[in-house]
């Protein structure tokens, strides 16, 4: 590995100042919904972003995603001025988790759209439910290449994601309906 790569190991992936300014600018829109981020909130969010990037082994470039998340969720009926910063923090972490676990197959906009749809829809503002939904989407993309499992399959979720999907325990055999297979974090191998 080139020593030039050590340049990538700096504290942040994007200059923090730029990220913070960009995030503060979203207040112009979010304030219409009664939501604003303080300087303290913004500092905390950028820190959480950096930690999440480190945790998921990611490098951020370009415009970053924090401000896009803020703009996407500021009009949510389930976000209040008390919860805005905390929800954004959770969403940030969930965003990077989904990007990694879908093996880079979901563009940023798609991830944000799905998060917003689910959060405002079926999840009714529950971050826990949203995590399950996004985890399922990421799993389906890893295993089936699509966001939803093939219709012929039951929607038993048999993967180990750390979430409780329901009363049924995961069943190893139904996990691979087209044949036996195995899966690690990156690859799914199916034997017919």
């Amino acid at each position: 590995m080139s020593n030039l790569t050590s340049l990538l190991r700096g504290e942040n992936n994007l200059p923090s100042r730029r990220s913070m300014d960009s995030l503060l600018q979203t207040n112009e829109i979010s304030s219409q919904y009664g939501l604003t981020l303080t300087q303290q909130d913004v500092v905390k969010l950028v820190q959480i972003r950096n930690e999440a990037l480190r945790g998921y082994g990611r490098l951020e470039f370009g415009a970053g995603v924090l401000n896009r998340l803020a703009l996407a969720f500021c009009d949510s009926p389930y976000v209040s001025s008390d919860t805005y910063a905390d929800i954004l923090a959770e969403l940030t972490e969930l965003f990077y988790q989904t990007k990694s676990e879908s093996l880079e197959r979901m563009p940023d906009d798609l991830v944000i759209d799905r998060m917003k749809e689910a959060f405002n829809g079926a999840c009714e503002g529950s971050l826990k439910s949203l995590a399950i939904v996004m985890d399922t989407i990421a799993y389906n993309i890893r295993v089936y290449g699509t966001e939803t499992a093939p219709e012929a399959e039951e929607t038993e979720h048999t993967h180990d994601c750390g979430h409780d999907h329901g009363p049924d325990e995961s069943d190893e055999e139904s996990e691979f309906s087209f044949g036996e297979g195995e899966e690690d974090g990156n690859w799914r191998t199916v034997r017919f």
Partner: protein
Amino acid sequence: MANSEILKHSAIDPEAIEDKQFTASLLQEMVRTGLADQTFADFFQNQLLELLNSQLKKITNNKSSSVPVELADDLMDGIAYCIDTALKSLPTLEESAATLHSQSVQSLYELGTEQLDKHGKACVALLSRARATRLKTANQGYQLVLDVTFPDFIRSWKTNPFPHDFEVITEYPLAVEPAESGIAGVHKRLSALALENRFCARYPQETVESLLGGYADAHRVTAADAYINLFTLCLQNLLLNKLLGRDGLLLTEDERTRLEQKLRPLSPCQRAELIRYTAELFLKESALEYPKLEDYIRRAALDFANLLNSAGGTLVELSVITPAARSLVHTDGERLEDDAFALVAEEVMLAETAKEKVQILQSELRSLEDLTDLLASGSIFEDEFEQLYALFDPVTLAMLLSVSPVTLTGQTLTIQTDLEWQAALVSYLNQMDEQQKAEILSIYHSAVE
């Protein structure tokens, strides 16, 4: 005052420059020696990150704002590879440092990419040439590198969106292995292979294959699987033949022994000089008129000399004995039951001609032991043995010889035996013409249990 400029910058220490981290180590040296300051280093870093960002956007089709660190690492390695290539192409470190200081990262990257693309294009032409001049050899490693390995390297190079360094590992060793990696390494290896093909094409294909066969036999592998360079086999035997005062590639065991007796007492310097002189003599006589090939032969001869010195003048691992002794592994067939054997023996005894007798033996017997028992059974009369042996193939004669207590002195066989068929066999073989006898003896020598 005039001298302060000289004193300001100390020279770049070549020892501090790492080949695989050329740009990074050069930048460090530049900062250490005052040729660049931290401001420049920061500026350089920012340009690198900009270039990286642009590549990441391209790779993600502008649809992602983050990527796994491993991907970014790979791309940064590729950027460093290209910039290293551009800077290493300059004649001195000082010029490299000046160029690093004066050119933008983008232009250095493009310069490096351009140089690497030239290697890539050259590889396509060289591969075609190497294939067109390929040796007809059973060696699979050789064929594989031409048909699979090098084409894969080139294909992978062409399809990768950004240039990358990579290890060049192949199934066929070269006489002089280049140290370069990446597409430049592929270029060098293909050039070397084309030179080796050109050299080996000067000799009959059967002779080259014979050397390969001899090597394979000596190392208990097949010619297809042998991991050996054909050019090396040819050159080493050629140089040894030259030491014997002749041209050609073939070498017998006796000749090798004689050479060892001459080489062992020499000092390493003397051996090295002898090989060097012999190589120059060959080059002068052969008038190759191809400087690249001549240089390649010189380098390979130098390697040979070093190996010869390491072996103390012993040639066992540095030569091939020919003709190749083919290993023969005999697995005896099913033996006849006593009653069946007796019937066959009677049938053979009653057959009127040698030809009929041989036909019965060939159709009824599957075991060498049965054959030797039958030859000793009295079914064949004394004056019939010679006629019989004349109709046996060389392998059968060699197998019969292998179970006889013969002594070989030079090319003459002697035996002390009570068995008529063995005495007759030895007598028959001693009367044979030299070439036929040599063939049978060759098989006899290679017969293994």
